């Protein structure tokens, strides 16, 4: 039982990381109906820029952070302007394919700017069991349950960051004027436009926010696994998360990420051995696929009614 809990918690925490990437997808999908396949590439771009700016330009941590954020916003705004605006009103499938092209381009651009080597990313977050961290702070961890003691501090902090980010976004979109405009845009572009909501600047803002989310995700992932090309594959895992949670639900991205993370770890530990391991590569996709057959609109997505 204790082992099960340990695997489950580990999975949930890993799932938080998926949620972080998925969040960026949802934001853009909600605002512009574009399924941005390049979100993963943006995560990679952000992480590489952050470490590249420190190594190659000699910037301090905070300067590098500001620099990356600026670059991400620029990237988002330019993407919206150059790539997506000419394709407004095209079938969703064309928009999807153009973001695949964008994926390649952004990956290439990142490596052109900062090179192809693998960088470590150090945020100063301890990668060790919580108990060790607590003890290193001079406190005692003995009265914590063993399951909690075993949790990795890094995962925990990642979860907290994700939580803060989600809460922040939720507040931003609920109470600010921009947020209200965004929700209007998500509901109906034409109607929003007709009541004087500046559609273009809303889209620019959303892409910037998505760039910011990508940066946060990139920092967490990069610190965990090093900044390397493989990051883009991890980001692909956000796709089954979205299928599970629904493309247009922030809540879905979070819950979907947690579920996929947990399922994946549990499957690897309990089912994996029967298959000789390595099922993590595909399990999330197959799980999402099976789920689709039962509930095509996702856990939190809106059901579409076909009209003729």
């Amino acid at each position: 039982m204790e082992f099960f809990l340990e695997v489950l918690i580990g999975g949930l925490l890993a799932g938080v990381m998926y949620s972080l990437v998925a969040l960026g997808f949802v934001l853009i999908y909600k605002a512009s109906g574009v399924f941005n396949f390049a979100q993963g590439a943006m995560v990679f771009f952000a992480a590489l820029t952050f470490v590249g700016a420190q190594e190659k330009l000699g910037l301090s941590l905070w300067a590098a952070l500001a620099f990356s954020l600026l670059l991400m916003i620029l990237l988002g705004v330019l993407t919206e302007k150059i790539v997506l605006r000419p394709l407004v009103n095209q079938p969703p499938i064309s928009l999807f394919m153009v973001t695949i092209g964008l994926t390649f381009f952004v990956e290439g651009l990142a490596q052109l700017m900062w090179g192809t080597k693998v960088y470590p990313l150090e945020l100063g977050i301890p990668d060790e069991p919580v108990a060790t961290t607590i003890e290193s702070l001079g406190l005692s961890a003995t009265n914590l349950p063993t399951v909690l003691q075993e949790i990795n501090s890094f995962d925990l902090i990642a979860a907290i960051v994700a939580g803060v980010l989600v809460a922040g976004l939720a507040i931003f979109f609920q109470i600010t004027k921009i947020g209200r405009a965004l929700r209007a845009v998500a509901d109906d572009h034409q109607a929003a436009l007709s009541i004087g909501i500046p559609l273009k600047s809303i889209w620019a803002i959303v892409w910037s926010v998505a760039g910011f989310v990508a940066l946060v995700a990139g920092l967490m992932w990069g610190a965990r696994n090093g900044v390397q090309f493989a990051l883009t594959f991890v980001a692909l895992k956000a796709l089954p998360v979205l299928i599970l949670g629904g493309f247009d639900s922030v809540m879905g991205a979070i819950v979907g990420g947690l579920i996929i993370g947990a399922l994946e770890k549990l499957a690897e530990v309990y089912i994996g051995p029967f298959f000789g391991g390595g099922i993590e590569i595909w399990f999330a996709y197959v799980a999402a696929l099976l789920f689709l057959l039962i509930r095509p609109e996702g856990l939190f997505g809106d059901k579409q009614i076909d009209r003729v």
Partner: protein
Amino acid sequence: MFYRESGQLKTSYQEDQALLSITQDRIGLLLILIGAFVLIPLLASDYWFTAILIPFLVFSLAALGLNLLTGYAGQLSLGTAAFMAVGAFAAYNFELRVPGLPVLVSFILAGITTAIVGIAFGIPSLRIRGFYLAVATLAAQFFIPWLLVKVGWFTNYSSSGVITTQPVEIFGYVFDSPVERYLLVLAIVSVLALLAKNLVRSNIGRAWMAVRDMDVAAEVIGIKIMRTKLIAFGVSSFYCGVAGALYAYVYLGSVEPDGFNLDLSFRILFMVIIGGIGSIMGSFFGAAFITLLPIFLDIIINDGAALLNLKLAAGITSVMQLLVFGGLIIFFLIVEPLGLARLWQITKEKLRLWPFPH
């Protein structure tokens, strides 16, 4: 002026529906076939066959398969490479386990096996559309190569997962030299391309396009959506499967499951987008373009660097490839969504008048 249909009157619907209803097109195709089957074998070097022409033809076939599914039936797939893997390993196992099975039969059986797998992975398309489906096909892309590695039987328990294909022997004749292998692929691809063209201009092709353009209306006029989509998955996968078998047997000679990765799937998707979505000929254009582009890039970058006396960063070619591929996809989707095939069509329309202005 020289390319025009005036004066060529058609007196029956059969003539009007013919594949090449204009004399100029018939002559054009004849010239291409003579060039491909006679001139190229006489002129090209081994490097051309093995590095350019054979992969071009194999990829054309795979792109054609994907184009049937995505371009005609409107179902996007990101799992093309996985289906090619099924074809490659199916052909290998048919050859291995059925002694004396003619290799062409193995290729066909490999295609059929892939078709069955493709239909299985196409079942979700009945409930989901667009990019939901695209994500679902990623399941195939990650699952199939994993399965091929994990189940040793598929690779005949090769420890590295690498299989080396059996010699390609037809009626006792071994297709071994580059030119022989080229001619074999060319023949297979030509026949399959003709069959594909026939399919898309008959009832099933129209049903595919109807489902693609507006599925509700298609159903209302009596098209069975489920059947139509699954046939699209089946036929498309058949083509990808045969392409995979050729990729293993004729192009590379030895393959491993991990070689059929997401990157290859994307590359084939790019061929379809750049060549022309919903065009048989476009698949060939796209394959040629994507096969040649890295070679050109390589030459340009290396020669350019040598010329300017620059020292190149490691991996710069692959980075440039990413940039150029990505940039081109964006460019084509924005500027010419119907790809090179559309440009060719425009050229033909211009040729009707050329060299006169009106």
